[in-house]
Structure formats: structure tokens, C-alpha cells
């Protein structure tokens, strides 16, 4: 929500994990209509987040630093933006060991990489603008925190 100075703040509500996005969106609409009589700020955006955490802490299973991030570039069509998916602590086993990209470029023919690409494309994931991924065409290592 935003006041007339441009400053923003948020109202946080928790919904049942069993609810669908459509259900939650409908509930937000109801609450938002009431907020106008309670707050002088204006509702400018809403966001639905789904967060999953394990019931008990999971021990780290490998020694790969979290900053070694695999960046996978997907195309979404000839006239829509490409986009990336980042995977922290990418394993050395998928990184090329020879050629100009040795140590940096991710091997697109690696079986684990092709399985990941298929899972992403087949399940309809998209870029931030809702353009659906069509093809994994490049991937390499980046250092990201």
C-alpha cells in the first residue's frame, strides 16, 4: 500500500496451503475492498507467495559452495524475452572440462541437464512476463550470492 508521499508498506495475510490461487485471489479482493475504509494508503499491488519448508532441518549433502550458481538460459519464442533459471551450488559434474568454455560452460548434452530442461519445458514454466519456456539453449557458471 502507498501513501501520498510515495512510501509503501504491506499487509500480510496467511492463507491455508490447501487453497488454490483463485481462492486466495478472491479472498484478497474481499479484504482489499474493506481496507479502503481502514487505511489512508492506497492498495497498489498484491502478491501471492507459496512457501514450503521441511518439517525438520535438512543437513547439507555436498561440499559445493552455494555461490557457484548454474545459470540456465531458456528461449520463449522469437519475439518474447529469453529468461534464466539459476541453480545454486551447481555440481562440477555438469561443467565442461575442455574447450574454450572449460570450467565455466555447462554441458547441455549432460543427461542431468537435459532431464532438467525437459522438466522445465514440459511443466509450463515461464519468464517473468508469462511467456512459456520453449528451449534450453545455453548455460554456464556464475558467482551469485
Amino acid at each position: 500500500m502507498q501513501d501520498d508521499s510515495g512510501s509503501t508498506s504491506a499487509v500480510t495475510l496467511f492463507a491455508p496451503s490447501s487453497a488454490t490461487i483463485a481462492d486466495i485471489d478472491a479472498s484478497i479482493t474481499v479484504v482489499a475492498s474493506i481496507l479502503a475504509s481502514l487505511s489512508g494508503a492506497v492498495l497498489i499491488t498484491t502478491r501471492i507467495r507459496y512457501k514450503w519448508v521441511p518439517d525438520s532441518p535438512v543437513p547439507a549433502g555436498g561440499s559445493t559452495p552455494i555461490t557457484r550458481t548454474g545459470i540456465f538460459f531458456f528461449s520463449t519464442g522469437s519475439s518474447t524475452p529469453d529468461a534464466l533459471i539459476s541453480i545454486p551450488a551447481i555440481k562440477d559434474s555438469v561443467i565442461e572440462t575442455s574447450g574454450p568454455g572449460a570450467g565455466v560452460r555447462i554441458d547441455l548434452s549432460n543427461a542431468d541437464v537435459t532431464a532438467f530442461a525437459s522438466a522445465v519445458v514440459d511443466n509450463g514454466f515461464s519468464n517473468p512476463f508469462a511467456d512459456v519456456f520453449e528451449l534450453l539453449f545455453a548455460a554456464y557458471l556464475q558467482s551469485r550470492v
Partner: protein
Amino acid sequence: MANNAFPEDWRTQPCFLVSIPRPLVPFVGGLLKIAENRGFWASPEDFTRGYTAIIELEECLMTTCLDVLLQQNDALYRLINTAVLGQAYTVVTEDPLVVEPAIEPLVTLDILDQDSLMGRIDRLTQLVDNRLAGTETPLYDELPGVKQQLEEIIAALGEGTDLTEVISNLEAIALLLA
């Protein structure tokens, strides 16, 4: 919140080629992460354009290594040098690629193979010089030339000329031109 705008005509703006050492690529790419976020941009339109551009830039970091570009440049040089002057090359090792002889700072017009482009032109030039003008060349020494033989025929023509000899000379010329 950052307030960064991004121009609508960004695709028609000039581009710059930057050489980044391979070990630095992961860090340079990682630093661009901030521009992938909506909050970095002033408006949804700026976000769409900026996100598109920054992702394409990150793709370019691993598109083509400068070494590959330089190797392709050298390959083009050798293609031209072989085709035009006939320089033969040998691959000594594949990885790293070593080819001999090395590329020289400059090239002379010496013809190294008569089957090259310049070699074939030189062969034609020698042929014309020899067959028409009668000049002896390294490749052709059929003397005398057409010009001289025609002059001899004209000089010999007159009353009582033995046409058998004239015809014989004309046949010789025809053979030279064949």
C-alpha cells in the same frame, strides 16, 4: 527503490565488444543479477526492456570465446593465402591449434603454386606472351609466336606463292591457338 529507465530504442543503439577472461565470466555475470529484479527499474516497461537486454547480455558472455573468433579470423587468412597465392598449411596440433607456417606480418606477391588463383592468371599471361608475341616464358617456349608467323605469311604472299606452305603455316597457327 532504484529508478533506472531503459530506452525504447535500445536494440538500435551501438554495441561494444568486451574481452572478458574466462575465470572472470562467472563474477561479471553474477554482478548483473541486480538488474534482473523488477525493483531495479523505474517502470514495468523499463523492467521488460531492461530484463530482456540484461539476459541477452548474460547469454553473450558465453556465446563465442574471443579465441574462437581469432582462430576463425586466422582460418580466413589462410583460406585467402592458399587460394590466391598457393601457400600450403599443415596442422601440427589440434588442441591447442598450431598451424605451420605461422601467419607472417606481410605477404609478397610471389606465386607459390601455379594452381592458385594468381598462379592460373600467371599461366594465362605467359601463354598469351608466348603464343601471340613469341616471347619465351618459364612455362611456354613454343617459338615463333602467332604474330611473327602471320607477318611471315603476309610477307611471303605474292604472285607464284606456293599455297601449300602458306596453308601449312596457317595450320600451325591454328594449332597454337587451339
